[in-house]
């Protein structure tokens, strides 16, 4: 239990241990710890950032979806209007066409009828004249009574 030279030996041993610890043990370990702490902190930050990005992206998606829906609704509305307009126009045109065709038919019929009537009139005139000729051949002179016959024809 006396103090003796052991104290010198122990002091030297202590000094050497501290020196070794300071040189070869402490720095690598504390560096690794600090580096890892930084890494973990970075990782956590990155995670948080990613979470925020994701939330923002989801918001964007929702907004775009809403916009797209609105646009689609608009397009459909327009298409409906346009369709209705086209149908109306076509109906209108159909009507006009029909009326035109009907009018043309009427005209043709009228013209045909007039022509037929003219023809008939001519034939009747000829017939009348022929008939009258036949009658008159026996009774009157053709030349003398032609003015009467013509007046008759004109009256037909």
């Amino acid at each position, binding site marked *: 239990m006396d103090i003796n030279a052991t104290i010198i030996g122990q002091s030297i041993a202590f000094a050497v241990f501290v020196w070794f*610890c300071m040189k070869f043990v402490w720095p690598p*370990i504390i560096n690794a710890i600090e580096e890892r702490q930084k890494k973990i902190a970075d990782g956590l930050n990155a995670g948080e950032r990613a979470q925020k990005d994701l939330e923002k992206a989801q918001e964007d998606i929702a907004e775009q979806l809403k916009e797209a829906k609105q646009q689609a609704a608009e397009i459909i509305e327009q298409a409906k209007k346009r369709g209705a307009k086209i149908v109306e126009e076509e109906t209108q045109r159909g009507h006009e066409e029909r009326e035109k065709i009907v009018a043309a038919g009427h005209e043709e019929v009228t013209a045909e009828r007039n022509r037929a009537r003219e023809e008939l009139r001519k034939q009747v005139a000829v017939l009348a004249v022929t008939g009258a000729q036949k009658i008159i051949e026996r009774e009157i002179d053709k030349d003398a009574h032609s003015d009467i016959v013509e007046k008759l024809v004109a009256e037909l």
Partner: protein
Amino acid sequence: MVSGEQTPTQYIQHHLQNWTVGEGFWAVNVDTIFWSVLLGVLFLWSFRRVAKKSSAGVPGKWQCFVEMIVEFVDNSVKESFHGKDKLIAPLALTIFVWIFLMNLMDLVPVDWLPTAAMYTGYWLGFVDDPHDVYFKVVPTTDLNTTFALSLSVFALIIIYSIKYKGLKGFTKELTLNPFNHWSLIPVNFVLESITLLAKPASLALRLFGNLYAGELIFILIAMIGFWQLPAHFAWAVFHILVIVLQAFIFMMLTIVYLSMASSEH
């Protein structure tokens, strides 16, 4: 008990005797040196293994454990010591782990290693009587170890004081505190010197006293026969607290003293 031939007094004395080689002051306690160096090397070797492989990646289990201790010491240093210093943290780590390991030898049942040493020495023919072999396995129950530690810290206190305050500042601190008047310089000097010298003395004696008393109680328990088993267990459990606490106190006080030495009042 080792042998029925011993009286209890002899038994206790035998356990408290160092294996000493040499005479007078130049004698050396071989057992103290052997165990402390062995434990110090064990500490540095096991921590160096981690240091060599350490990276910021996923740590292994041993690496985790070592890093836990290192971080604990680092936090203690950061809390008490403001300013940058390359020496303090490794110093604190060395003190903490080394003293803890040396204290830990106290938990080895008191007769195992001494008895083994006794018969080894006897068979190897170094001694005629096994009881002539003395072997104390707890280096911190040797005043030489605790004073070696505390005087090294004391030297650092003085070095830091001079380094941070200059020789003039340090002298002023010793002579003009607590009474700032020229006529009271001798009084101040006596007071401050006692304060200064009390630091290493209390450091060394606190650690030595705790461990020596603990060891003595283990030895006393070892003599009471069958009932020593539960008694030993109970004291050992309590002693686990003591050995960690003493290592921690020594480390903490070292940090605090050096922090005081390196900062102005």
